[in-house]
């Protein structure tokens, strides 16, 4: 059995006016240590998939299992990083980073030191007593990453975490996140609408079709691109070919 397994997931949103099928019969799996991207046009239910895996929502039908256990509510095993940092403006950077530990009642001197060490590693050691509004967008998103990783989740869900950043910051952060996840051997699922980002960062790209979200195609990224940093991968001559084939597949589903 694979690390994360989604089996025949269907999710329907009910409103007064209608019942909308957001995801229909979606089945895929992720192996331990893999970096997988979920790519698709806007409104294909990508974020819904993450929300279901995180346990914040339950699918209308189908099952999701993580390490052979069904997910029914948010667990410490899953870390969720949102589109924007959503750091709490009334907490200092340090307090923000320790939020997950506080909520799960795991504040120990050891965990605290580990988190602060990680903050230092991210080049944010000297702003730990600052407030979020004193930091730039890229710094804030790095703090959000520390906050997510502080509880040491096995699976990381990334919901377009780079989309609100400027291009240069985004490229830098892609490299940073990629190397951190690789050295810590974390499994990650990235939702994005950016084809380039998906290719540069992942081992596999899962393409979803337009509403309702269905599995359209799975692209394997070749070994030699996976080994490169996202930035190098973008500059590799092969990058263009993969971009082209995913682009065409995406177009055919419009």
């Amino acid at each position, binding site marked *: 059995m694979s690390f994360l397994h989604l089996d025949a997931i269907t999710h329907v949103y009910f409103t007064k006016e209608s019942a909308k099928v957001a995801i229909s019969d979606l089945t895929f799996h992720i192996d331990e240590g893999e970096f997988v991207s979920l790519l698709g046009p806007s409104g294909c239910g990508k974020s819904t998939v993450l929300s279901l895996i995180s346990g914040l929502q339950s699918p209308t039908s189908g099952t999701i299992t993580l390490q052979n256990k069904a997910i029914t509510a*948010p667990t410490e095993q899953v870390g*969720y990083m949102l589109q924007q940092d*959503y750091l*709490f403006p*009334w907490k200092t950077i340090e307090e923000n980073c320790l939020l*997950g530990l506080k909520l799960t009642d795991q504040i120990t001197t050891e965990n605290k030191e580990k988190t602060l060490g990680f903050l230092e590693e991210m080049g944010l050691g000297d702003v730990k007593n600052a*407030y979020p509004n004193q930091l730039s967008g890229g710094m804030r998103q790095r703090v959000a990453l520390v906050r997510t990783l502080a*509880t040491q989740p096995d699976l990381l869900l990334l919901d377009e975490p780079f989309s609100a950043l400027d291009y240069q910051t985004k490229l830098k952060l892609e490299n940073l996140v990629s190397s951190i996840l690789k050295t810590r051997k974390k499994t990650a699922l990235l939702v994005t609408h950016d084809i380039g980002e998906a290719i540069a960062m992942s081992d596999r790209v899962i393409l979803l079709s337009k509403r309702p979200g269905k599995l359209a195609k799975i692209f394997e990224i070749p070994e030699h691109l996976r080994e490169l940093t996202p930035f190098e991968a973008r500059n590799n001559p092969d990058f263009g070919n993969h971009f082209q084939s995913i682009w065409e597949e995406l177009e055919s589903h419009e």
Partner: protein
Amino acid sequence: MNSPQLKKQHAHYLNELKIEKRIVFTWQLFILIAFFSLWELAGRLSWVDPLLFSYPSKIGELFLIKLLDGSLVVHTTVTLLETVAGFILGTALGTLFAAGLWWSQKASKIADPYLVVLNSMPKVALGPIIIVALGPGYLSIIAMGASISIIITTLVVYHAFHTVEPNFVKVIRSFGGNKKQTFLEAILPASFPAIISTLKVNVGLSWVGVIVGEFLVSKKGLGYMIIYGFQVFNFTLVLLSLVMIAIFSSIMYVIVEWIERKLIRN
């Protein structure tokens, strides 16, 4: 900021700010002095009926008399304590009710029409009932000070709780945080600015409740002074009470503003 040219420009800018501030203050002072001099003059020269409108020096004289015989201190202290108690009680209970409504969405849906009715009802009209129920004493007056602000606080704070960025809640929930943690870590601190702004409104409202309460029942307090002055046709006494109310409600407002600055740094 190192070139002397830039420094000079900055100094010029600061100087302009200072001048602007001075002009505003001069005008404020001028209006204050003009108002009281005109009032004094109008009273003394009988442009207006001094029996009705009195004049500042007469109020000042009365102030000294009442201060020296100790009665002014008693009246002011009583009213001030009642107002502060009503204000704190109204705000705290209102916030507590709002928390309850936030906790149970069903309760808030059920309570909705009743809150609308209670909010639109003039609370001072409840005065006689409160006085009969709680007895003609401090308790009734504090209850009136609180009742006047409690419903509006509930409504405003509940609205603030409800409009907290849903993604803050999502962050808490994604860590497996429960409802209590969601409230204490996200909802309440995110709503502090709204709670503080209701504090500012409640300062004024509590004064209304307490003064009306004192009109109805009390034997002490600034509201009693007003009613007594009215009955014996001593409008200097009425105006003295008004001046005292103006001073102390302003002080309360300034204190709330100070708390706001302390509490909301970011």
